[in-house]
């Protein structure tokens, strides 16, 4: 290895710092999250021991927090791979510092989200029946399939672009060398290896988009395949996907802002990233509003009594505060903040993102619970008050997310170093060429040249 290369990589030394330096803060935060996680594990143990009775679910409201969080987390997971794939595909150069974080979100959150239906099972001990005697006709099985596929694809998609970076860490020496050696898969940075890697990434990025879209579509199918008012709707597929991307971007923004602060990535995550992503968030907010509006307009206009029951229950019933809170968080706040340049600061974007994440969680809640709480027969309305166990599982999920990120940051760079380098080395040239290709005249000249 020649000296210039090492020096070059020293330029990105801040990106390695989290791996080698561990502060007190790290352990403190980690400890807190670990405690929460262990507590939630214990809560889950009680649930397994004594049954789902420890939750607040009941007769008409047979699904509660677990399913809400399942949909929510899977939605968040769309932050990553999908966005990074789209950005890579569209050759957006500003993506380079973002993709890794996005992909990590996907991998971790997908694991958390995917576990939720299992947490929700009354008999988790019989989970294997899903493999033994699973019925492919059941939307739940579609889910199992597509989430597994998405999880596989996105972990591979996370791992592949990490190989060159892992090789770098390996080369820098230090602890756990065997792990990095194992994971680097013999990466030497040869042209051939680079070509193979690029091709693999390209194939995956094309593949991962339909998978990601399918995942959330299929999750929406869980609801829309039933005949229940408020669920039985054709709009649910795209609506869920849009909502997923929406919440995903918001989650990504929050993570970016936090790590920028914590690990001092100001140099990598610049104002422009937040500007761009903020604009994307604004667009998604408007798209989300469009879908929501369409959904409820269809229901209200048709005025089918059962459908109206549910809708009115959402508009004016005990969950009205959640419904209007959702509209406020998902539409009013982000649109107000992101439409005005003055407000569209990093803090502004952070506020908008947090609002969106909360709002999207409320949206999932407002989809799952009111439909169940309004049985069609003349039965008493359902009530649902989550218990401590359910809150614990929610908190546990969030802390696993945080822990996952912390552990990941401890072992791997959170920003793709080689991609940044690549950007520096080839990106500028490539973009220049690409821009030229857009401009009028250039093609003519090249034609001329060829001619």
């Amino acid at each position, binding site marked *: 290895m020649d000296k210039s290369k090492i020096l070059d990589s020293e330029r990105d030394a801040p990106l390695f710092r989290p791996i080698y330096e561990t502060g007190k803060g790290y352990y403190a935060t980690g400890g807190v999250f670990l405690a929460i996680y262990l*507590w939630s594990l*214990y*809560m889950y*143990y*009680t*649930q397994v*021991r*004594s049954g789902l009775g*420890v939750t*607040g679910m009941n007769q008409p409201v047979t699904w509660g927090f677990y399913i809400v969080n399942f949909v929510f987390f899977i939605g968040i997971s769309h932050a990553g791979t999908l966005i990074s794939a789209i950005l890579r595909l569209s050759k957006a150069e500003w993506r380079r510092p973002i993709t890794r974080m996005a992909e990590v979100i996907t991998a971790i959150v997908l694991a958390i989200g995917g576990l939720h239906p299992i947490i929700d099972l009354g008999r988790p001990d019989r989970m294997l029946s899903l493999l033994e005697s699973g019925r492919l006709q059941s939307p739940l099985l579609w889910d199992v399939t597509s989430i597994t596929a998405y999880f596989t694809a996105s972990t591979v998609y996370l791992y592949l672009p990490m190989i060159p970076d892992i090789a770098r860490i390996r080369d820098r020496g230090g602890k756990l060398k065997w792990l990095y050696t194992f994971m680097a898969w013999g990466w030497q940075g040869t042209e051939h290896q680079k070509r193979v890697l690029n091709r693999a990434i390209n194939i995956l990025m094309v593949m991962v988009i339909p998978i990601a879209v399918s995942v959330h579509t299929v999750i929406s199918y869980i609801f829309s395949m039933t005949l229940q008012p408020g669920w039985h709707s054709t709009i649910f597929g795209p609506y869920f996907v849009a909502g997923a991307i929406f919440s995903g971007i918001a989650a990504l923004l929050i993570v970016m802002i936090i790590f920028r602060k914590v690990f001092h990535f100001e140099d990598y995550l610049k104002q422009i990233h937040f500007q761009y992503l903020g604009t994307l968030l604004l667009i998604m907010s408007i798209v989300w509003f469009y879908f929501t509006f369409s959904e409820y307009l269809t229901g209200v206009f048709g005025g089918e009594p059962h459908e109206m029951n549910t809708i009115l229950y959402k508009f004016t019933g005990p969950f009205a505060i959640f419904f209007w809170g959702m509209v406020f968080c998902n539409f009013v706040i982000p649109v107000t903040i992101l439409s005005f340049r003055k407000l569209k600061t990093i803090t502004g974007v952070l506020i908008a993102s947090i609002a969106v994440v909360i709002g999207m969680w409320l949206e999932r809640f407002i989809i799952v619970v009111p439909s169940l709480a309004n049985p069609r027969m003349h039965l*008493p309305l359902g009530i649902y008050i989550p*218990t*401590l*166990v359910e809150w*614990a599982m929610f908190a546990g999920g969030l802390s696993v997310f945080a822990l996952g990120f912390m552990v990941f940051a401890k072992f791997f760079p959170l920003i793709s170093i080689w991609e940044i380098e690549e950007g520096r080395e080839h990106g500028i040239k490539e973009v220049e060429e690409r821009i030229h290709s857009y401009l009028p005249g250039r093609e003519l000249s090249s034609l001329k040249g060829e001619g």
Partner: protein
Amino acid sequence: MEIKRRDFLRLFGGISGALVLHGCGLDDVFDVPASLLEKAKNGSGLESWSNTICSLCPGGCGIQVRSIDGVPVYIRGNRVYPVNQGGMCPLGLNALHALYNPDRVKAPMRRSGDVGSGKWESVSWDDALRTVSEKLSGLRKEGKPHQVGFLGYEERGLMRDHISRFMRAYGSPNYYQFSLTQNDTVAYQLLQGHAQVPAPDLLNARLIVSFGANFLEAGYSPVYYTKLYSHHQERQTKYVQIESRMSLTGANADQWIPVRPGTYGALALGIAYVVIREELYDKEFVRDHTKGFEDWIDRGGKKHAGFKSFVLGNYYPERASEISGVPSATILELARQLGNTRPSLILGDGGAIANTNGTFALMAVHSLNALLGNFEREGGIYFINEPPFQKHPDVLEDAIAKAGNHQTPFAQSEDDSFPLTNFSIESFAKNVVAGRPYPLSVLFIYGGNPLFQTINHNDLANALEKIDLIVSFDSAINETSEYAHLILPDHMFLEKWGEVSNVPSVGFAHVGVQHPVVQPLHQTRHTGDVLIEIARHMGGAVGAAFPLNSYEEEIKFRMKGVYLSGEGAVASQGVRQLWLEYLQQRGWQIGRYASFEEFWDRLLENGGWWNPIRKKRNWASVFRTSSGKFEFYSQSLKASVDRLVDNSGGRQSLHNEDLVLNKLNISARGDGVFVPHHERVPYEDDLPLYLIPFHVLPNRDGQASNLPLMQEMFGYSANRYWSSWVEIHPETASEYDIADQAWVWVETSVGRVKVQAKLSHAIMPNVIAIPFGLGHTSSGRYAKGHGVNPHWILRNIYDPISGKPALEATKAGISLVI
């Protein structure tokens, strides 16, 4: 606020897991049925069915018990038993939980601590019986056998005879029955001369108007009535229900007419007004079989105003409407329907009689039956013959017994109240506390739970504390038997011999025979046998009164009469109505049996005997009044009042009569006293709402509270489980800012209870209703501490004529729990 266990669980989900598994009674499903699994695997699984009679309520349904290897596992209705014809009510279906109830008294027990301390020690049967017989013998030796009381609970037929016989031979006139239906029939006594509850012919009537009679839920036999009701559509019968709160019967009626509590009589008389004025009544019947309808002149030549004049003078529809809150148009319409539809039938019960003016109200209601000529007529009301039981020879009383039996019955009122009954729980309690006319030394309590059911809870509790020895035959420790000194537990009905005959108001003579379908699970004994044993212990004439060795033999002996009479038949396939009609056309074949043994075996096999053919009665047996007619002008009431006036100083002074009438809460004067009329209920006008209790089918008398399923189903009609509620009209609720499910205080001058509100359009505005049956402070683990008992906040007032508790005479205030 008390933190309920489950709230606690919810809050601290973590701890809950451990608690649930180790301390809270929730059993691991794989552990609990181990005994069952053992049986299912190793037992032969042989199934058997046996027939007996349910006696969880007075309804007397025939049931079939399914046993696997001799263990009862399921109960269903007996298709061939004529009362229920295979139908069941929730309570009867749940009888096995009563059999296997963990809170049953498993052996004789003596109280070793204070009342309510729950400290009991078991004693052997021999010791217990010795204690009782020594005490009883001692009293006899002292010449005080009359100081022994026996408080039964709505037993009829043989058991009643059996207890009477015991008390008579022993020498006490103090055998009383306490029940919720106690003293209901005084009005019948006054009008028709006997207290037999008439059997309404619901099947053939075309219009049925019920004044508060909630026969589908709280009648004598709800299942029997439900069977009859179920034909109303095909027979095009119209049901009209008049009551303040829509009961199950009201909900199933074609029309519900809400009426202000305590004004049923006025409404009935308003209807009578229209019927009389428009001459829609049965003139022939009124002419031939009633007395006191038209104005009349007595032997002394004095002119008396008749029922007709009274009604026409006082109860024009506008006035009836003003009193009862029923629009006069409705009164007119209903009266015309009644007059123009024949046969049309009038029923009265429930709220109509549960008030201070109940006797007069039921008289007014029953008078409508007379106006419509409904007696002994198809679609009207019948009186059913007693089954032809073989009679025991009369008891030979010895000198002591004779003297004892001639004492004044203990529970007779000392003052002017309750002239027409020999028992009222109120005078009973008062007399015990006062020790008048003589102290009560021993009290047997058999069935029932008066302390829970009455409205004079405190008086009765004081009374029970004053008695030297209380012996209870209950198979569970309830509020009342907490006061007992000794408990001699009876079998549960599935374990014992018994007989349920002629359920009041059922339209044919019948006898159901209970026989043990399972060996007694615990060290319990049949009370009938225990009485025989005690009598034998005492020997002499008392012992000689019981020549037969057991209650089982007793039943067999009595049933011999039924066999010998040749009447009726053992219940068999032919109980269906169509089949019956066919038989009646072709001539009824009475089953013949080669021997009594064969008859007896068939009887046990099929569950009972019945006689659907009723002999036409002569009018003298229908109306056993002094005139032999239906008396609009009740001579027996007149006689009673005269007697009271005489007692208080004679009729020379008008003042004496006023005094007596005022004490009886009668505001009418002159002849008006003795004809059906409306009396104002002395409500406390400073409270805004009428409070009425009501009954629900799963737990009619509050005795089913230790059955968890019945507790769970208690409020199935209101979507409430294990808890009480108060029904309020939304209009009334909005006046007090009460939302559905809000917790409220219901407060009367006696006390207050906390309940959840249920808004309902099926109740009159300004009336609130709380179900009776919950709110136990004892009675077992599943009963205790759930819901509230409305009877405990009702005023302790009675119908002064009949001694019936005035359950609907209390007013209440309501406020949100803050």
